[in-house]
């Protein structure tokens, strides 16, 4: 995409290819499938894995500030480094890693539009060389609570009828798909969605080549069709927060929503909580609630 508004935060594969040896830039791959990095990565890129590098091994949470500082230092990232994220799966995990970097206040984060898919389609080279950057110094900030929604905040937000987006598939939203025969449930004991949440599956943000749709197309969807308000507080969720971090990125950085948070606990938490409200069916209020297509979700 070439919209001026996104020139800085969203970069093309061509831009990345031109900046491969720029010492002020660190390219970071974050994937659903970790073996992809071993198969071949953008030359010079380091890998940061959401599951293994960014998750605290004991408490269900992100690594703490000290561990984040240590991780950045080891990956050759200092406070003034421009960090460009990319990955597989339409950049889900790249957006998630971007979000964690913003959580700790990293200033200059970018996304390579289209991720691995676009790099491949553009016929650019993959490297299997090991990348061992010189250690850097890093000082992280305290977590930025303004981009992260915790369960009780989501409950409050839901009760107040504020903008809430469920970016999972319609089957998950309606509560039809929890898990398949022969397969263990991935963790939620209840299916459905948070009452009032609009279902805007994440693929609606993307083109077939993995890139984001244009700002104009995205504005049409969120602002004109869904009538979402840029200034109203908004929370996005999915199953574990990776797909919703893509939508969070779209709303905050491509559309300029002022107050949007990712609920990283997402359905894996909500679907297990005792006595939180759940709606089933296609309507935001649930089948038993209002069947109106214009729910009072916009505070």
């Amino acid at each position, binding site marked *: 995409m070439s919209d001026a508004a996104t020139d800085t935060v969203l970069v093309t594969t061509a831009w990345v290819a031109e900046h491969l040896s720029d010492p002020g830039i660190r390219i970071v791959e974050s994937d*659903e*499938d*970790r*073996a*992809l*990095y*071993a*198969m071949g990565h953008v030359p010079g890129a380091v890998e940061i*894995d959401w*599951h*293994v590098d960014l*998750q605290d091994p004991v408490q269900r949470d992100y690594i703490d500030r000290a561990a984040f500082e240590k991780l950045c230092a080891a990956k050759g990232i200092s406070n003034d480094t421009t960090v460009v994220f990319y990955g*597989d*799966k339409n950049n889900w995990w790249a957006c998630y890693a971007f979000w964690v970097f913003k959580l700790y206040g990293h200033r200059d984060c970018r996304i390579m539009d289209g991720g*691995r898919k676009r790099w491949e389609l553009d016929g650019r080279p993959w490297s299997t060389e*090991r990348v061992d950057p010189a250690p850097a110094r890093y000082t992280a900030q305290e977590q930025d609570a303004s981009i992260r929604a915790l369960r009780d905040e989501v409950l409050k937000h839901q009760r107040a009828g504020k903008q809430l987006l469920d970016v999972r598939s319609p089957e998950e939203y309606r509560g039809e798909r929890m*898990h*398949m025969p*022969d*397969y*263990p449930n*991935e963790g939620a004991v209840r299916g459905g969605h948070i009452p009032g949440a609009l279902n805007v599956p994440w693929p609606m943000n993307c083109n077939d080549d993995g890139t984001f749709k244009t700002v104009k197309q995205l504005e049409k969807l969120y602002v004109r069709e869904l009538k979402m308000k840029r200034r109203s507080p908004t929370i996005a969720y999915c199953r*574990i927060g990776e797909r919703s971090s893509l939508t969070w990125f779209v709303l905050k950085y491509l559309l300029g929503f002022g107050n949007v948070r990712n609920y990283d606990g997402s359905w894996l938490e909500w679907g297990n909580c005792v006595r939180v409200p759940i709606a089933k069916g296609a309507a935001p209020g649930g089948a038993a609630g209002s069947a109106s297509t214009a729910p009072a979700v916009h505070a």
Partner: protein
Amino acid sequence: MSSARDRLEAIISEFADLDGREKLELLVDFANGLPALPAEYEARKAAEDRRVHECQTPVFLWTEVEGGMARIVAEVAPEAPTVKGFVAILAEAVNGRPVAEAALLPDDLLERMGLADVLGMMRSRGLRAIMARLKRGLVERSAQPA
């Protein structure tokens, strides 16, 4: 000819000695070695609903039993090398061996290979589910009349 268990143990010890990066590289080697889907299975992909729906990336699995011998046939998209490599490892262990041996394969292989830590809890759970599905599929298949 060594048993499925012996074959798998050899692969496990090969992985166990490697560092994290090398483990992933070896997994990619296995992924690259998974044979292409035989032509006769191509048409069956749609007809038999062999798609593993939990995997966002297309994964098709068959568990075949011929004369009491197990055979895993699979097609895994190249963008899922972890799943592909894991299926290739299981196929290498059980293909051509009696089904009873497949049922006895150890379930803790990811831990012993050291892959559980490299992949994290969620991915490991997904791979364990694939293994359970393949083992169950072979046992059920062997119970059916040919």
